[in-house]
């Protein structure tokens, strides 16, 4: 399938201008400033921005119109991401708009759609993903968290791990085992949990970034209405896979990747070797060119997947795997180049500079701490959402029939 590349699509110029103008007026200065410094946002700051986007329907612009979205073509979605990135806006949140939402509008009942979709569209609520468990990583279907029926409720017991932003979440979508005897993929159900339910404990995991992003989530006799189950009991694996394909497309945030390249270009300009800026260095420029080829390729793969999603309701599992594989490798490659520059400043990591209110003195370029944070954080890019090894297995089996 051949698709126009985003850059050449002049029909989107007006829309791009609208997004630029919107960001100019609506992006709160405190967020703009924090984004510039790579500082962590507070939840309320993030939500306030998502709500502004939500007032235009832009959180979910790529959803079909009949599902409450704006029915954007892939090119328009990519253009939107690009403009957000260029304006220094925070990246789009994927847990609600890319993961939970499409599962709910595709497999949920009317009540569930009424209850949950508006909050996602408007950007009011924060979602998290209850998938991985200590014994179920790459082998996700081995999950053990169980949900036993008790009247109109399930009683949930068990543990999730690596749950990003669970400490912020209002809701979690989770995979739980509802049939202990069935084959492992056939005893799983997909449920929605209100994070305020008694019996849920969230415990932080400090990452190699030295930041708090990940959590463990424990369930101790957590009562969840059976009405919160999506689709049929024990058919959760089907919905889980549908979500994974969307997640993998969402894993590659081209705006963020593009922003990273810009950041590295800036770092090169700010870094001198024997008095000359690295931006004048042919080897570094060659590497930038190589990264830009990677970006153009990943954007093209992305456009294919978004188009496939519009035609058939979901990206293909294989296509999403290929995109995830190359997109995350690209992201790591970009950030590695950043570290190759920062080695010349002694590889200082002032992680405190990423907290609001820090007033210490920075050694080296201002974006150093942000670039190192991102580098460390994105070591996980080839692990989360299904490791690269898992993506290759999917392609080997699914696409090549091996």
């Amino acid at each position: 399938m051949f698709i126009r590349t985003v850059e050449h699509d002049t029909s989107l110029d007006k829309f791009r201008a609208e997004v630029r103008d919107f960001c100019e007026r609506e992006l709160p200065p405190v967020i703009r400033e924090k984004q510039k410094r790579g500082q962590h946002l507070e939840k309320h700051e993030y939500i306030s921005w998502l709500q502004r986007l939500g007032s235009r329907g832009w959180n979910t612009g790529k959803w079909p119109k009949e599902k409450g979205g704006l029915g954007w073509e892939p090119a328009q979605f990519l253009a939107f991401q690009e403009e957000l990135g260029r304006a220094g806006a925070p990246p789009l949140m994927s847990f609600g708009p890319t993961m939970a939402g499409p599962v709910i509008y595709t497999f949920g009942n009317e009540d569930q759609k009424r209850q949950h979709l508006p909050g996602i569209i408007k950007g009011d609520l924060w979602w998290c993903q209850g998938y991985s468990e200590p014994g179920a990583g790459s082998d996700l279907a081995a999950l053990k968290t169980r949900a036993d029926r008790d009247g109109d409720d399930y009683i949930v017991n068990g543990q999730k791990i690596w749950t990003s932003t669970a400490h912020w979440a209002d809701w979690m979508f989770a995979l739980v085992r509802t049939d202990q005897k069935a084959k492992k993929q056939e005893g799983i159900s997909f449920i929605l949990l209100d994070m305020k339910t008694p019996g849920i404990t969230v415990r932080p995991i400090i990452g190699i970034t030295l930041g708090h992003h990940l959590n463990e989530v424990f369930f101790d006799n957590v009562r969840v209405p059976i009405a919160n189950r999506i689709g049929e009991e024990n058919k959760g694996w089907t919905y889980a896979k549908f979500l994974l394909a969307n997640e993998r497309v969402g894993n590659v945030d081209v705006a963020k990747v593009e922003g990273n390249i810009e950041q590295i270009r800036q770092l090169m300009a700010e870094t001198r070797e024997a008095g000359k800026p690295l931006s004048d260095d042919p080897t570094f420029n060659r590497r930038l060119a190589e990264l830009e080829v990677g970006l153009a390729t990943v954007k093209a793969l992305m456009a294919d997947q978004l188009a496939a999603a519009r035609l058939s309701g979901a990206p293909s599992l294989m296509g999403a795997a290929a995109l995830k594989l190359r997109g995350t490798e690209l992201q790591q490659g970009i950030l590695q180049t950043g570290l190759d520059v920062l080695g010349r400043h002694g590889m200082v990591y002032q992680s405190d500079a990423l907290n609001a209110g820090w007033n210490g003195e920075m050694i080296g370029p201002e974006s150093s701490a942000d670039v190192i944070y991102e580098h460390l954080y994105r070591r996980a890019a080839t692990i989360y959402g299904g490791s690269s090894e898992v993506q290759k297995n999917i392609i080997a089996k699914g696409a090549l029939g091996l």
Partner: protein
Amino acid sequence: MPSLSSEERQQLHDSLLELLGDKYAFEHWKKIARAPGGEGFGRAEWQEFADMGWLGIALPEEAGGSAGGMTELGIVMAAVGRFILLEPFLGTVVLCAAAIEKAGTERQRRMLSDIAAGKLLLAFCHAEPGGGYAREWVKTVATRDGAGYSLTGEKGFAIGAHAADQLIVSARIGSEAGPVGLFVVPRAAAGVSLIQAPALDGRPGAAMTLAGVKVGADAKLGGSDMDMLAVIDEIIDRGVVMACCEAVGAMATVTDQTVEYLKTRQQFGQPLSKFQVLQHRLVDMSVSTEEARAIVHAALQALDDKAKDAQRLVWMAKVKTAQCARFVGGQGIQLHGGMGMTDELSIGHYYKRLTMCETLFGDAEWYLRQLAQRREAA
């Protein structure tokens, strides 16, 4: 070249691994690294290392050392990497000891005894903000001031500088066009201002500004105004090969730990180590570690033999080791999955240390470029 017999080398290696494995396990490491208000390393540990004779392993006998060569020092540094020790080996025992030994007068060489005894901490402050990895880039100036000198300039980040008793600072003598000298400057001297910060791997250090720092004539290493760039070149080469040794030790631990983890981690009804694609990955990690070890040994040998092509071999060792370190460190995290991303597990800390070793004094790309330029010049 005086050096230890192979039996003595083996004993050194065994005693390092035994004592460090016993007392310097990761839990202990965390305690030191995270001690509130701490210096980021252990003073008591440093003293113990001195008592074991490890700090003086390559220092002359008259300084209380063992008069070992680079191979012996490399054995110590590999152990530093195996346990990602936090104490300032590289700054004090490798770089500054080399500076004093190579450039110091008889009188100045007395500092070597204090190094061997664990009583003197030093930091080598040569690189400057505008220089990148270029070794000859020195803009700091030491103007004559009475009988002594007054130093003005900026120095880049150096691990351990925050706690060093003395800094060895390079500066151009007289003017910006003058020969480069090496000066011993007390960290607490008036006019020295440090910006303390942690490195990627958490070890603290500092960048600094020197604003008219007054030192005596005896602060300059060596008696004359001889240009020290060639000596600095040798000092940095020693740093390069020792950073490589450290990386080799760290890679060995990463490979061992990852093999063990994949043997125990069950997915799809079997240990991960049963998957051929992961077996091959582990093999590549193991072979990478061996490749690096082999070429680093060759470089150490060349230095000990004072071989004509020693520098070339040191640079080649850095290229290969840096490439291997990147691969092994990255795969260590990848194969540990989410576990590898946590601050609680050691594997991420090894990744960070390997990244430091990889980039210190120049990365693979930089040394490849130097090697290429030499080919063109030849």
